[in-house]
């Protein structure tokens, strides 16, 4: 369901498919009602502002069955921003542990994905260094539309497009 930090990417082929199928089943369970807990591990708050706009009338995540919740005990999905500051690491781990299984972790924003900041004595540089991440949403900040698409991918309601993109102009984008 998720790739552990530092774990090897390759898995036996059959097992990979089973894990994928399991993830899809769990995702479909959440499809119509997903509770999201946001977690700021040291971001500049631009991602947070875009996440806030999700609840605004223009984007309205409620119509898709997504809800923001403050309590990790009620949450199904952890939406993480920021480069995972070391000072925040234990709180992030506690938040993740406080969520009941099955749970997803979605890292969003260039900081959380490993860009912008190098790992140093203040930060891990990316969320994946400390928490197991299921879905990555790039952007700086990701627009609410991108966030919606990412959440829909997480609950398997939309197909993932990123692997098909080549970023070659004029070709198949």
């Amino acid at each position, binding site marked *: 369901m998720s790739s552990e930090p530092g774990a090897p990417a390759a898995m036996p082929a059959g097992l990979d498919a089973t894990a994928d199928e399991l993830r899809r089943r769990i995702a479909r369970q959440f499809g119509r009602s997903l509770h999201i807990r946001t977690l700021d591990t040291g971001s500049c708050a631009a991602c947070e502002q875009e996440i806030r706009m999700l609840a605004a009338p223009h984007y309205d995540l409620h119509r898709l069955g997504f809800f923001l919740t403050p*309590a*990790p*005990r009620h949450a199904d999905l952890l939406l993480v921003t920021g480069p995972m500051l070391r000072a925040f690491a*234990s*709180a*992030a781990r*506690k*938040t993740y*542990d*406080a969520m009941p299984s099955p749970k997803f972790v979605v890292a969003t924003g260039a900081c959380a994905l490993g860009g912008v900041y190098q790992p140093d004595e203040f930060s891990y540089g990316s969320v994946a260094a400390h928490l197991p991440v299921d879905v990555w949403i790039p952007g700086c900040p990701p627009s609410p539309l991108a966030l919606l698409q990412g959440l829909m991918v997480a609950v398997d309601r939309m197909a993932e497009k990123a692997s098909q993109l080549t970023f070659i102009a004029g070709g198949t984008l």
Partner: protein
Amino acid sequence: MTALLLFGIAGGAWAVAAICALPAGTLGGAMRLSCGFSALGGVVAVAGGISSLLSGDSRVVSPGGSSVVGTLQLQATSLAGVFAVLLGVVAVAIALYLPRSRKDAATATPAYLCAYNFALVASLVVLAAGGVPTFLVAWESMALLCYVLILHRPRSSQVASGAFWFLALSEAGFVLIVAAFVILAAKTGSLELTVIAARAHLISASWRNTAYLMALAGFGFKAGLVPLHVWLPEAHPVAPADGSAFLSGLIVKLGVYGIALFAFRLLPEGAAWRGILTMGIGAITAAIGILYAMAERDIKRFLAFSTIENIGIIVTAFGAAMTFLAYGQRALWAFLLLAGLYHVLNHGCYKTLLFLEAGITEHAAGSRDMDRLGGLARAMPRAGVIAFVGTLGIAALPPLNGFVSEWLIFQGLFQGFRTHSDLVAILIVVAAATLGLTGGLAIYAFVRGYGIPYLGMPRTLRAAEATERGQPVAGPGLLAVACVALAVGAPVVLVGLARAIRTATGVSLRPILLPGKLTVIPAHTNFSGFSPTYLTVFLLAVLVVPVLIYLAGRPRGSSVVVPVWDGGTLAFKPRMQYSAMTFSAPTRVIFDALYRPEVSVQRASDDPAGRSGPVHYESQALPVFEKYLYRPVVGAVEWLAGVVRPLQSGDVNLYLLYVFLAVLVAYLVAAV
């Protein structure tokens, strides 16, 4: 006759218990023997009370007396029978509680036990008094013995002050009670209560009303009606736990008995304004009692104010009953008296329980302050469960007994429209609304009163180390069982009470009240009805469904224990929990006009963020009654005493002059 005989046996057992207690400090088993006799007396008193409930008023027995105190006249009435049952139950519970709580006793135990058992005898005589002198002598002895009880603790100025408040207000009430009885005795020409009751209608209305008001005020001092209640929060914290339990469980009820005696037996007929006044005082007492309870951190002061609240509820019921009688609604008159008596029984049970548990808590965790406790339900499971039953009862939550009696009172009040007077009906509804407010605040207060000390994490080391090994459990446990029995067995209790009401008021409520076996109808069939027994069964059955769903659908895998979610902080400290005052802060802010707190804040530095040093915050509610009622009265008395002092100059010549003047005046008067 049998009821009186049983009362006599009970009194004898208690006297024996008192004498057995005298060598308690030196002889090993003396205290146990004394408590055994005390419990025996309690059981016999319960039997006597039930017997008098069922058989009606006995005749008056005069087993002698003396020329000093008058003839001793005893009579077992049904009205008193209810209170006698409560007396017995409280006595048994405290007798079971005493031995273990006094294991490491101070040396004052013999005097305490002796005084306590004689106080039980005195209370019984108050209830069984058939004549005015008996009543007054027994009342005063009861008051003095209770004063000794409160003074039991090692002497400190606080203890002396609390005991003095009790004695002073008791005496003030006693003056008024004597005056009321004297008026009635003089106007009817007899000292026997039955004769007074029979001839009361011959007295003129103004004298009857004067007597009633004096009795209301006099017994109100003992019962704890606002503004005569100030001794309750002073005396309860300083008395030992069983002393406080006795005070709140029984002595306060004796004041209620006095009011009921005057309102329903001696002077039942009267104008409606008497009832409305009583009802109003009761409603205000209830509201103020619970509001002040919200501001208390000391468990015993909190429970004392809660007692005031419940007395207010009972007196409201009595007042409404009198109002209904003035408008000819005899069924509702009897019904509200019954509801009030039921609440007397219930409150006696759960308040005694809560005070005994407060004593256990103080012993085990070393403090009465809620902010020094916490997590006691885990450290002391049995005490936690028993205290929870008591809390459910006093918060009037179904299916326990508090709910049943409060429901009955509310149903009686809601039928105010039957008086066919718009003004009176509105006043009755306002009283019901006030009781509704107090009910809601009571739930809030007792969530705080149970949640802060018993739930959560321990706030101090001593609370964390609390253990209930060696703590008494039989006494409070018995009361918890009684609470449940009074609820589930409500039909049985109502049958007994209906018999007592039939004797006391002549109204036969039973066919209206309990048409079937288990459903209660409040006095008129077309209004409402409910069944406490079915409600209990229903609630238990409703709980079964989620349990079955859980058992059927729970995950097969093992569960994981994870730490409590604390917001991700590094270390969650017990001090980060709710404290007693923060939990009640919303109510205290809303009712700021009542509390008028004086707040003082001292900072170590002027840094507005308070970063460099401790901040001292102190808030004290304004003691309204002490400041605006009692201090002026005491000041006036002292001024008067100062004016009169010159008369006592100590000069023998002046005293001889007084003697001469007195003899001269006597001759002149005799000559004329």
